[in-house]
């Protein structure tokens, strides 16, 4: 375990990077750049998970969000015509502002309202092994249902893109 200062410094650097990247995502004009900043935001969030000793969640975050989801978003941007790839003014700006303001209010309320108890338990060693055991013992059914979900997602993806392709050819 690194001395506590290291964690605190890392936490501040990571939070600053995450927030800066999140703001840039909204501020940047080019959509491709916005997606790249969003990917960096995901990486920053993964760093914060590591500070919380949630190593598996952090790796999953990088693998799925920073890796796969940002690839999907890049693809989605590349599929739009080049002229529409701008983070321009839309009629959704005002409702989005209201919605994010409300979300912020809820989060701040929860943060202030929670009684933050400090646990005496030591830090986790590795979370992956206990997760694996949880998958195989009490959560076997959700584990298998997850694979059904993935199968449905795979078939759905193919059906949807086939349809799009036919539209594209026509």
């Amino acid at each position, binding site marked *: *375990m*690194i001395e506590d200062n*290291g*964690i605190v410094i*890392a936490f501040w650097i990571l939070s600053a990077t995450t927030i800066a990247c999140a703001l840039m995502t909204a501020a940047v004009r080019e959509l*491709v750049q916005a997606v790249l900043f969003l990917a960096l935001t995901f990486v920053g969030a993964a*760093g914060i998970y*590591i*500070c919380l*000793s949630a*190593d*598996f969640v*952090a*790796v*999953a975050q990088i*693998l*799925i969000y920073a*890796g*796969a*989801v940002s*690839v*999907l978003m890049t*693809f*989605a941007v*590349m*599929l*739009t*015509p*080049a002229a529409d*790839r701008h983070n321009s003014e839309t009629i959704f700006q005002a409702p989005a502002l209201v919605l994010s303001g409300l979300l912020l209010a809820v989060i701040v309320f929860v943060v202030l309202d929670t009684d933050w108890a400090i646990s005496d338990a030591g*830090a*986790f*060693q*590795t979370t*992956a*092994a*206990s*997760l*694996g*055991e949880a*998958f*195989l013992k009490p959560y*076997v059914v959700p*584990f*298998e249902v*997850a*694979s059904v979900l*993935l*199968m*449905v*997602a*795979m*078939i759905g*993806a*193919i059906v949807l*893109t*086939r349809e*799009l*392709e036919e539209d*594209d050819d026509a």
Partner: protein
Amino acid sequence: MIDQFGRAGFLLVFAVIFPLIPIVASVALGLFKIRPSKPDPIKDSIYECGMVPIGDAQVRYNVRYYVFGLLFVVFDVEAVFLYPWAVAYVGLGVYAFFEALIFMAILFIGYAYAWRKGAMEWL
């Protein structure tokens, strides 16, 4: 666990700083007029291994490439599910093996469908 990540984080910090040094140095030397600045259209063009670049970098992709992205996400999530299984496997034996076999078998239906529909073919 966490100090191994700390070391990786240390490397990450250096990995960010090193490419920033020449960029910042170049801009700073330009500001103080130490670096000569004689731009011309060929110098300012994108370097494509000596070829003259044609068109814009941001072309519109064909929709059929999107399916590879979607399939990649599915297999990525599958790998994330299998990793904790692999870590916990040693203590659990045959039971764990069949558990994962069912998991893979269900996914294989989707995989077979994708293969059958030609979604794996690069066009």
